[in-house]
């Protein structure tokens, strides 16, 4: 059941556009806390609320019109200098944007949102009167009383009253002043309305001055709202230039197809002279280029700037920091970096977690920072850059850093690893322990970063996106989480290798180089085959062994591969070549170490290997090539 019959399309547009707008407003509000008198910021925020109100009016979303009308008025007064912003009132304004977001959530489910909680409206009205308002939860019981008063009061100026424009205009031109007062009288009820609400609010508020410590209840609401909105987004906005490119290329492909159809008729009719074959060759080469271009163009239509994700976080960091009594600034860079839309959505949860983690666990309290000789304000930087065919996202904090020994100790205490394993880990490997399921460095799970999601989920989510996550940390200086992601999941460049007479595809991103395996170079180090490549001792792992198969021949080639943790040489029988493939997930079955399947040029099925899980699932002994095998061969 929809309450927006015939307007669903418009509603969708409105939600997409206004959600972005609201995120901008949220960010500007965070900025405003630093520069409360910045006219441009005040103007932009005013316009944001104004625009949302305008759209909501057409969609008859009374609750939103009523709420935005207040915030808009407030910022109108602020930008005109009629009011000055006291920082205490920021919480009220922030709660209001959180409420607007909640309403977006309701609208996205095609429901009319209920009016904003009366205590928020009342607090806003107080702020409008130039007073300091508190979002005291005590105000909540007033809801049934105040809400009905609020809604009709503000609905009036936005909707019904309208001056007799023509009359006024004519009169102005004729210099006859009479009708002007008539117009002036119409908007008059506006200021009258808040007075009523204000009376209500004052009556229920116990201590309006205790505003520095915001009540937790309204605080958490906006966060819930954010996630609600982030989840369902079924439309995408595409630059028309990109769309035209797709259209253009598909047209070109159509033309090439026509050419091929003609050539096929010729060949079927027995016309096989060199001219025809050369034309066929040309047409196919052209098709090859065009399809590649089309794939790129289609991929580009799905690319969205990561800023759309990033812009939600400064507010998140700010709210969390205030709750924890910390002073944290979230600095964003590289927002224009583009990423596939689906990945962008799946990246939200891990990034939210990492940002929260940095604010909660990463940076110290103000007192601790000052004691350590650092600036009181902590800086968390969230950056995105494109490095080759990868996107690098980094979350860096200037906090206390992570201590490998503490992490090792915790992991042992929680029974995640044994002492022996712990002792064999170097510093970097120790940091990786935080990604183990069940690991949490705090004895008591904080209600803030906890939320039942651990770092292990962050890592799993990143790995689902074919990405990897690394940690760098220096005690006392801070930590950096680096996430590396492919540009898209749609097309994967692979290297196709053969083993036991069957082709397998491995992601090209992990391949560093290909070397011939010469038995003379194979050395045994503690019972395992290794090859020294440019002074680096690398273990040799047989693909057949990893798959649990018997080798049918001695591997001739080694693929030097690099995963997040280590490098190794994958021994294979031969190569087919490199290819750009589209991975199809396997239905119902999920064999270990297989990411999916694809079709090769000759129409046969090729399994695409998931090296990380393949390595994890097989024991070192099964896959490490026994040196003896090479030695026998050489002899």
């Amino acid at each position, binding site marked *: 059941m929809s309450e927006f019959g015939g307007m669903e399309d418009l509603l969708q547009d409105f939600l997409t556009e206004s959600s972005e707008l609201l995120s901008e407003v949220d960010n500007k509000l965070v900025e405003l806390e630093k520069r409360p008198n910045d006219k441009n910021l005040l103007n932009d925020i005013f316009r944001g609320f*104004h625009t949302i109100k305008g759209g909501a*009016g057409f969609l008859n979303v009374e609750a939103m019109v009523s709420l935005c009308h207040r915030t808009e008025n407030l910022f109108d007064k602020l930008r005109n200098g009629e009011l000055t912003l006291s920082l205490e009132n920021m919480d009220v304004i922030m709660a209001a944007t959180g409420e607007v977001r909640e309403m977006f959530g309701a609208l996205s489910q095609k429901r009319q949102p209920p009016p904003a909680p009366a205590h928020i409206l009342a607090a806003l009205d107080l702020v409008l009167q130039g007073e300091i308002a508190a979002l005291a939860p005590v105000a909540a019981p007033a809801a049934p009383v105040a809400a009905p008063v609020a809604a009709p009061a503000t609905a009036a100026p936005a909707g019904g009253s309208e001056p007799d424009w023509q009359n006024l205009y004519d009169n102005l031109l004729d210099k006859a002043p009479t009708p002007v007062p008539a117009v002036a009288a119409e908007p008059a009820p506006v200021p009258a309305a808040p007075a009523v609400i204000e009376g209500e609010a004052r009556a229920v508020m116990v201590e309006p001055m205790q505003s520095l410590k915001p009540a937790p209840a309204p605080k958490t609401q906006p966060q819930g709202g954010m996630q609600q909105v982030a989840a369902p987004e079924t439309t995408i906005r595409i630059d028309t230039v990109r769309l035209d490119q797709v259209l253009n290329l598909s047209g070109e492909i159509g033309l090439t197809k026509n050419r091929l159809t003609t050539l096929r008729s010729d060949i079927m009719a027995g016309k096989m002279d060199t001219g025809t074959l050369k034309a066929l060759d040309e047409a196919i080469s052209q098709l090859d280029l065009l399809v590649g271009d089309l794939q790129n163009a289609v991929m580009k239509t799905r690319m969205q700037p990561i800023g759309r994700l990033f812009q939600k976080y400064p507010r998140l960091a700010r709210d969390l920091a205030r709750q924890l009594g910390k002073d944290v600034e979230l600095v964003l860079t590289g927002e224009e970096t583009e990423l596939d839309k689906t990945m962008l959505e799946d990246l939200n949860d891990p990034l939210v977690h990492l940002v929260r983690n940095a604010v909660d666990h990463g940076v110290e309290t103000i007192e601790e920072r000052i004691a350590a000789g650092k600036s009181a304000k902590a800086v968390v930087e969230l950056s995105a850059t494109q490095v080759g065919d990868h996107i690098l996202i980094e979350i860096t904090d200037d906090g206390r850093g992570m201590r490998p020994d503490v992490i090792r100790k915790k992991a042992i205490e929680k029974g995640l690893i044994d002492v022996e394993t712990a002792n064999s880990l170097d510093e970097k490997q120790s940091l990786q322990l935080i990604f183990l399921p069940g690991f949490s460095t705090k004895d008591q799970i904080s209600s803030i970063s906890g939320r039942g999601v651990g770092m292990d989920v962050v890592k799993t989510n990143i790995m689902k996106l074919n990405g990897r996550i690394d940690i760098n940390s220096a005690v006392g200086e801070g930590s950096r989480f680096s996430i590396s992601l492919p540009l898209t999941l749609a097309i994967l460049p692979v290297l196709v290798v053969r083993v036991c007479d069957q082709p397998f595809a491995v992601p090209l991103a992990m391949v560093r180089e290909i070397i011939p395996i010469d038995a003379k170079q194979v050395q045994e180090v503690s019972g395992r085959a290794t090859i020294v490549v440019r002074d680096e001792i690398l273990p040799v792992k047989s693909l057949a062994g990893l798959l649990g198969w018997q080798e049918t021949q001695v591997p001739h080639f080694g693929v030097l591969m690099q995963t997040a943790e280590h490098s190794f040489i994958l021994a294979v029988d031969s190569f087919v070549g490199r290819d750009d493939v589209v991975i199809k997930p396997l239905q119902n079955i999920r064999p270990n170490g297989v990411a999916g399947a694809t079709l090769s040029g000759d129409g046969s099925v090729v399994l695409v290997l998931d090296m990380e899980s393949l390595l994890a699932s097989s024991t070192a002994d099964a896959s490490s090539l026994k040196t003896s095998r090479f030695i026998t061969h050489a002899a």
Partner: protein
Amino acid sequence: MADSNMRFLVVDDFSTMRRIVRNLLKELGFSNVEEAEDGQVALHKLKNGNYEFVVTDWNMPNMTGIELLRAIRADAQLKHLPVLMVTAEAKKENIIEAATAGASGYVVKPFTAATLDEKLKKIFANMNK
């Protein structure tokens, strides 16, 4: 009566709003509608195209609706263009400002196709005087 082929330029920074106005105009039989996202873009388009009617929002970045209106009235080529101002405010001072700047009409958001029709008809009637 106005020509249904009359060329409109709808100016608003909010694309949803442009779409709403475009839909309403279509309901009234005007389908020759172009869009611009702020006053600057609009002015550029107006100078390079044969537009016959401007519907503009007031509050926009870069160049507001009222600035656009003044620029239109100051341009020898464009000054005769009918300009309908769209705003969310029914404030007296805004209306006076629009009128003195030479707006042909003023409509308050949200409005229906009927309201828009009425406003347009008044403007057309004035134009034919």
